């Protein structure tokens, strides 16, 4: 089973990298863009023995306690069997 964790800056926090990419894309002539946010992506391969609820709890804890700094970042995750 694999877990995919996405970490990004909170909406309330300025994301200069996203802003720069947004500016560059616009300048290159890409159309219809409203905003770009940059984040991080983690692919976590889990032990087969873990049940789905166990895995859910474990990944939630990893995302909250390690992968994210709650002052500036937020996370979401999904699973793939």
């Amino acid at each position: 089973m694999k877990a995919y964790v996405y970490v990004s800056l909170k909406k309330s926090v300025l994301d200069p990298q996203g802003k720069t990419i947004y500016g560059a894309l616009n300048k290159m002539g890409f159309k219809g863009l409203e905003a770009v946010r940059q984040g991080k992506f983690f692919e976590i391969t889990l032990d087969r023995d873990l049940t789905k609820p166990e895995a859910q709890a474990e990944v939630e804890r990893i995302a909250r306690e390690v992968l994210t700094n709650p002052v500036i970042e937020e996370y979401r995750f999904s699973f793939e069997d």
Partner: protein
Amino acid sequence: MKFGVIIFPGSNCDHDAYWTIQQVARQSATFLWHESQDLENCDAIIVPGGFAYGDYLRTGAIAKFSPVMESVKKFAEGGGLVLGICNGFQILCESALLPGALMRNVGLKYVCKPVHVRVENDDTPFTQACRQGEVLSIPIGHMEGNYFCDDSTLAQLRREQRIVFRYATPAGEITPEANPNGSLDNIAGISSAGRNVLGMMPHPERASEAELGCVEGFKIFQSLVGSMATR
């Protein structure tokens, strides 16, 4: 006075802080290994600059889980003196010994240059040798020095006079041009509520000897030594 300088894998200003304490401030110093919980009866702890754990994941994010930081937390809670410089400041924020976080510089690039900081509070163990409003020239060298916290934290920091250094012009004006990294309110350094923990982005150990062109950073070490003598 005995100073402990922590070594994380990837610390690279550990030897610099050690040298300044031992050879310039003439105090005893020892290195503390990240895997040890023993602070060896040190009177003050320095969390040095560098790239602990390569700054991978986030600056300071992995270092906060090391055994030595557990001891540092207890030490700080008991009123012990802790100085975090650059990466050390980032680690202290990640460890929640100081509020807020240090984000990527607004210019997105690493910046190494001398800057000016204004002393906002001279009533701390780290600044007692300075005057309130005094401007110090101290170099910075970082990619993530852009201090951020939410509005209520900022209000609290102000109220409790915990903003210790702010980026300023040589004349002491706080301007956007003087801010090298987009830091909130030009913040360069803050202290804990008890004043015993200080985090700062500029490197005082790089401005502590005439040979290196500047000695104004040495006031931080002088303050520390002075405050411990009267403790």
